């Protein structure tokens, strides 16, 4: 049976969430989500350090979705292009927030992505910082403007590993979910 995005979203918003979004990601929706998160964190009375970190990780993960999502044609959904992505910010539990994102990517990207995350999860805090500076100072810039720093910065800022899953969608695409504790 093919992957069902709505079901996956419903399942992952069963836990207490501060904010969740299922929909298309545009520059405008990113701005609106970030404004909303700022308000929610203020209402929570979150301290500067964690407030900024959660906001920052929200920026990076949302922009990752914007830059790196591929758009399959969904057979479940009457053969329309599946533009939807998922962004979920959990409530604070044991002094931590969690951000979960999900998006479709081409199967051909799995290997590079998996290798990159596994490598990051393997590195120590100091090694992550060294790698960050190395890539920051590297002249190359990817066409999408990220320069390969996004994932590294998530780990550098949070000091936590990235959890991920791949779900079969069709022959060409898979659904990629990423979760990080802040």
């Amino acid at each position, binding site marked *: 049976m093919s992957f069902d995005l709505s079901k996956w979203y419903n399942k992952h918003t069963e836990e207490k969430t501060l904010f969740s979004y299922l929909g298309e990601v545009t*520059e405008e929706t*990113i*701005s609106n989500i*970030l*404004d909303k998160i700022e308000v929610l964190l203020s209402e929570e009375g979150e*301290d*500067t*350090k964690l407030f*900024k*970190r959660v*906001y*920052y990780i929200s*920026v*990076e993960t949302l*922009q990752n979705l*914007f*830059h790196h999502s591929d758009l399959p044609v969904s057979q479940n959904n009457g053969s329309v292009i599946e533009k939807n992505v998922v962004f979920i910010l959990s409530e604070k539990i044991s002094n931590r927030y969690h951000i979960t994102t999900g998006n479709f990517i081409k199967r051909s990207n799995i290997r590079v992505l998996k290798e990159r995350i596994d490598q990051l999860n393997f590195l120590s805090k100091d090694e992550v*910082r060294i790698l*960050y*500076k190395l890539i*920051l*100072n590297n002249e190359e*810039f990817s066409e999408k*403007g*990220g*320069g390969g*720093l*996004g994932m590294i*910065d998530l780990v550098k*800022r949070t000091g936590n590993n990235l959890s991920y899953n791949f779900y079969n969608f069709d022959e060409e695409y898979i659904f990629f979910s990423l979760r990080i504790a802040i």
Partner: protein
Amino acid sequence: MESIKIERTRKTPDVVFNAETGKIQIEGKSIPENSIEFYKPLVDWLDEYSNNPVENTEVNIKLEYFNTSSSKCILDVFKKLENIYKEDNNVIINWYYEEDDEDMLEAGEDYQSILKIPFKMIEMEE
């Protein structure tokens, strides 16, 4: 040479690049999806300014947030300033960070370790 003055938006900072006073300021959020588009005119301006800089160039960076694509562009700005400094001009970068914002302090330290230019970390009280 014309100065640059850009008002902040939801995702881009206030920018003042003043060729007469040598004061350069970037303040606010820098989280645009396309950072290159925003920073290219600033890097080009510094290229021209480097031909005839004033005696003391003072750079004030007061960022609340910046995304990773901005981080590369900000480094490009700093590298232009580093070149001006290497030509025997006075250049100082003042990196402001909010009290308790360790991440912003660390980001400043990362730039400091990459660049050979006077860099001052300034903590702002909340």
